[in-house]
């Protein structure tokens, strides 16, 4: 830089030229154009550049040099109508979008549907709805399919031949299970304190638990 500066001083000192002062050397003019285009909020024309540069400067030539200098770089000097501006190289556009991965908890509907599929697979949508007591939205199933935690199983050999859902390898991976048989039964859930919220009155809950085990057995038998 100091060399360039010296050149500049020399350039300026040289008198007796047409202008009152000689224009700075081209390398210096190139620096000027570079800085102006970098800092400007809008593209600048040759005339606008020259209006801000020392007398006798040739912005058009400086632009040509600058354009060549930026060829193949991450930034390019581009012409916008009659004006000039720096723009990011088009092949690097992907850097201008930043992907943010946001981790979100699965919705309650989704996790419950998933749990029912895991415990009762293969299971039809109607069965899921019966167990949950509310209808299952298309979106919930789609989301689980998209996550690749469930997939379509064989069609049920009943009227209408409804599709069934089963969980996938990816599901087992995510939840750290070797097989769905590793899923704890209701008794274990209760023992683990997961069922302690308001047990059903009377013996009914017990009955239900008892019932769950064989049910599950059936479900998971290969």
């Amino acid at each position, binding site marked *: 830089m100091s060399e360039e500066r010296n050149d500049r001083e020399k350039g300026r000192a040289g008198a007796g030229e047409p202008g009152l002062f000689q224009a700075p050397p081209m390398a210096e003019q190139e620096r000027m154009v570079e*800085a102006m285009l*970098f*800092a*400007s*909020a*809008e593209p600048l024309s040759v005339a606008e550049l020259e209006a801000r540069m020392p007398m006798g400067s040739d912005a058009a030539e400086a632009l040509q040099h600058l354009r060549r200098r930026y060829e193949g770089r991450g930034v390019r000097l581009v012409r916008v109508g009659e004006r000039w*501006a720096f723009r*990011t190289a088009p092949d690097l556009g992907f850097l*201008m*979008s*930043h*992907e*943010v*991965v*946001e*981790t*979100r*908890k*699965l919705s*309650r509907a*989704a*996790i*419950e549907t*998933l*749990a*029912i599929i*895991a*415990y009762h697979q293969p299971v039809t949508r109607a069965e899921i709805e019966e*167990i*949950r*007591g*509310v209808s299952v939205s298309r979106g919930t199933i789609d*989301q689980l399919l998209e*996550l690749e935690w469930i997939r379509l199983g064989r069609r049920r050999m009943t009227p209408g031949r409804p599709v069934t859902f089963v969980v996938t390898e990816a599901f087992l991976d*995510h*939840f*750290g*299970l070797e097989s769905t048989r590793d*899923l*704890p039964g*209701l008794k274990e*859930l*209760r023992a*683990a304190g*997961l*069922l302690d*919220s*308001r*047990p*059903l*009155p*009377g013996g*009914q*809950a017990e009955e*239900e638990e008892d019932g*769950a085990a064989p049910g599950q057995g059936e479900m998971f038998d290969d």
Partner: protein
Amino acid sequence: MSDEPVTMPEGEDAVAARRAAEALIVDVDGYEGPLDVLLTLSRTQKVDLRRISVLQLAEQYLAFVERARALRIELAADYLVMAAWLAFLKSRLLLPPDPTEEGPTGEELAAHLAFQLERLQAMRDAAARLMGRDRLGRDFFARGVPEEVTMKRRVRYTATLLDLMQAYARVRTRDEFRPYAMEREDVLTMQEALEALRPLIGYAGDWRRLSSFLPPEWRGDPVRRRSATAATFAAALELARQGAVELRQEETFAPIEIRRRGERQ
């Protein structure tokens, strides 16, 4: 703040002296506190701040405060505290040190004041150098058209095995998904009691205690018994209203008795 040296000669140049004093006093708000005044005063000594005569400085400051008071201009408490402190320092510096006295010597206090003044001056110089640097937006510039980095949001859903198990437990116990309804397991409705009571009443020609009509399976558990008692009583009232039975009670809280109506013996 004026940078001109502040001198306060007695006598001769009285007008100039007064103007100098007034400049100080009138500008007292312009001063950034007593340390600032001291720093200004110390400049009249035209020596290294480390070697200023604190004694002389104290005298200048006290004279400044004195003049300010003579002009009936109120000085902020800070200035008076500094004046008192400097008077104390002056006395310490003038009197021979008393070895029995605790605390720092006059020299130590003077050195500290000199340090404070030097440090304040150093910070002012540093501030000036800082402000004199090339500055962003004035001497050098950032990109004029920053490109927006678009934030693509990708949502990753997670759930733990615990979430899964809890969800299943929730569904299976149905404690949160069923439309809300009162638990009816231990409640005998009046309709049920009526249905139980009606066939039995045919045999009750004599007064019998109402409690004997409770369905047997509702007698053990106290909760169930209470519900059944209430329902059966309500059913009995209903039957009485219809004219099917008569009810009586010997006294308050005595057992209620019931018999079929119309068949007197």
